[in-house]
């Protein structure tokens, strides 16, 4: 059962991303991305991280992607994105990307080398305890970060009277 869910979600996720690469319509891209994020949320759930899964769906698939869609509506681009040309750059990027991919796989193997499969990494309760003890400073600072981001975005994109 779990395997079936995993495979379905993985395929959905990878497929959505692949579709995004192929598609040239930004709105579609955004929707593909919603799909990818939502299925990732499911995968998070499979990893015994229900809270992360919920946040993923709410914040990512919900809030952030809505933001993207708003932005796309604002631009209201008529013409589709241009066709990609194969250039030296693309070849270089592909080559480097492949190397990176191999490296990442190796790194992943290395990372798992010392792992001892134990039980679940603790429930929401453990996570909360962690957040408000060891990571308290970081947690508080993120709130500041969000505030700063908010102000920054307003300052950047807000209508200026004189500009």
């Amino acid at each position, binding site marked *: 059962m779990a*395997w079936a869910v995993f495979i379905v979600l993985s395929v959905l996720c990878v497929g959505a*991303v692949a579709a995004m*690469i192929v598609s040239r319509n930004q709105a579609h891209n955004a929707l593909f991305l919603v799909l990818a994020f939502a299925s990732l949320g499911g995968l*998070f759930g499979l990893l015994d*991280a229900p809270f992360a899964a919920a946040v993923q769906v709410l914040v990512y698939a919900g809030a952030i992607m809505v933001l993207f869609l708003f*932005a796309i509506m604002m631009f209201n681009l008529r013409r589709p994105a241009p066709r990609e040309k194969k250039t030296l750059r693309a070849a270089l990027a592909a080559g480097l990307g492949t190397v990176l991919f191999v490296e990442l796989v190796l790194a992943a193997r290395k990372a798992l080398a010392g*792992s001892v499969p134990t039980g679940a990494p603790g429930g929401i309760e453990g996570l909360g305890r962690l957040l408000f003890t060891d990571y308290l400073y970081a947690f508080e600072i993120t709130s500041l970060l969000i505030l700063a981001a908010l102000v920054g*975005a*307003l300052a*950047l994109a807000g209508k200026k009277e004189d500009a």
Partner: protein
Amino acid sequence: MIPPPAFLFLAVLLFGLGVLAFFVKKDLLTQFMAVEIMLNAGNLAFLSLAKAFGRAEGQALVLFVITVAAAEAVVGLAIIVVVFRQRRSLRTDELKDLKG
């Protein structure tokens, strides 16, 4: 019970796709989305490793990554809006102002 290495492989695959998307696409917005994919691949890796080692720290980090990503998305989109207002274009092969 699915073994964590499978998730980890999926994360690597997603990251690779994100990189690919970033280099293939030529409009700023979609490239930005590609960055988000890479971030999520990272999250998946964190969670799978958390599972593999049975520790909650990975999950906590994911929360931070999501918050930072939210902040980043807000500012990034604001910048894209400003760029679009000024240039009427989001094509990265047309934006060359970084040239010194």
